[in-house]
């Protein structure tokens, strides 16, 4: 698989997204890219097994909570965002029992990989890394599943940033 994923920006120019990922996420991407297909699947399942560890812990407080059941997902998914005094985002997630394995994998991967990034960094994140983690075959056969968690995390970050901007204007 090519590491040099490039995409077109709004002006149509090629933009290389390589190296623009947060450090923790980059490590996860590199790990998955080094694995043969069967080990990649095993590692995805290991992450899925750990998805429950990404749930909110007792006494944690959050700036925003977004719990909902979307048509894109088979069960309720909750996203909890806390932004600390240094502007770093900390994300927790809850998943209903019917949520599919790949969605659980992406939950654990993204909560770990994006820990400590800023909401703006998360919002600016190109989505091409998802294919590099799950592999082209799983993207091809379940394209509707693999981007869902990233979309939800970006969505809560956007709401947080919009509120910050509105507060600054006011």
């Amino acid at each position, binding site marked *: 698989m090519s590491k040099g994923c490039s995409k077109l920006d709004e002006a149509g120019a090629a933009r290389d997204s390589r190296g623009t990922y947060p450090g923790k996420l980059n490590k996860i991407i590199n790990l998955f890219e080094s694995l043969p297909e069967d080990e990649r*699947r*095993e590692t*995805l*399942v290991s992450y*899925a*097994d750990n998805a429950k560890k990404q749930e909110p812990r007792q006494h944690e407080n959050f700036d925003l909570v977004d719990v909902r*059941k979307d*048509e*894109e*997902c*088979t069960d309720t998914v909750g996203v909890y965002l806390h932004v600390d005094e240094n502007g770093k985002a900390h994300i927790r997630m809850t998943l209903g029992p019917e949520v*599919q*394995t*790949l969605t659980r*994998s992406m939950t654990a991967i993204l909560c770990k990989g994006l820990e400590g990034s800023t909401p703006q960094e998360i919002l600016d994140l190109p989505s091409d890394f998802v294919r590099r983690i799950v592999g082209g*075959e*799983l993207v*091809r*056969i*379940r394209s*509707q*599943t693999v981007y869902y968690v990233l979309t939800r995390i970006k969505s809560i970050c956007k709401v947080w940033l919009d509120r910050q901007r509105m507060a600054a204007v006011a």
Partner: protein
Amino acid sequence: MATHPTQYAHPEALVETDWLEKHLKDEGIRIVESNEDVLLYDTGHIPGAVHIDWRADLQDPVIRDYISPEKFARLCSRHGITPDTTCIFYGDKANWWACYALWAFRLFGHDKVKILNGGRDKWKAESRPMTREVPKYPATNYPVPKKRFDEEIRAFFDEALGQSKSGKPLIDVRSPGEYRGEITHMPEYPQEGVLRGGHIPGAKSMPWKTATNDDATFKPADELAKIYLDQCGVKPGTDTVVYCRIGERSSHTWFVLTYLLGLNNVRNYDGSWTEWGNKVGAPIEKSA
């Protein structure tokens, strides 16, 4: 009032969880898991079961069609399946995808097929053994099927249209909202590219899951007969076509009609609503 059967027409097409646990190592059978959740098999499966993915393994990646007979032979050979192997299918979602895989096997003439009644959900609910160990079977030399049984169990657009025009039984097994044309996708699933909502004129609505109990097993024969013979107007000796969105949910209903009620002239229109709803010139109805 018609008398309804009290037993399935082909009870041998089902195996129960209790039976399977006692026959896991029988020679001559291959347990096949087929799911909607693409990684579910990897999280644990029935010991000895192989995994067949409905899209990656059974569908052609380029042409909207099933794999070639050559690829089917290679798939079976890889899993140690011969034409004499009895394939016992099971999976998530009340065996919805398992029935789809079974139907695809029948397309290639593999007749020794069964469904695990209750599927993966019931097996897990009963705390029966699961493993993450992927079995390896000696490769076989499955002969390339000489024909695909499209004519017998598969309907294409023109045949579905003919069915509609002639007023013969057509069963739409999608959700009521899809049937009425209020939505163009399954509730809880993304829109997958259908331009228009509604149903094929004359089709009766009977969501696929009507045939199952809460524990994912099939309803008894007399209840199934009331649902399909009385409410849908299906008759022995009359052609019946079933459809959904891409032919997966309807393969579950095809299994019920063919194996549990014993109708031998049921075909699955796998082009289904993703073809009909986009097809230029295809008539639709939106009535309740």
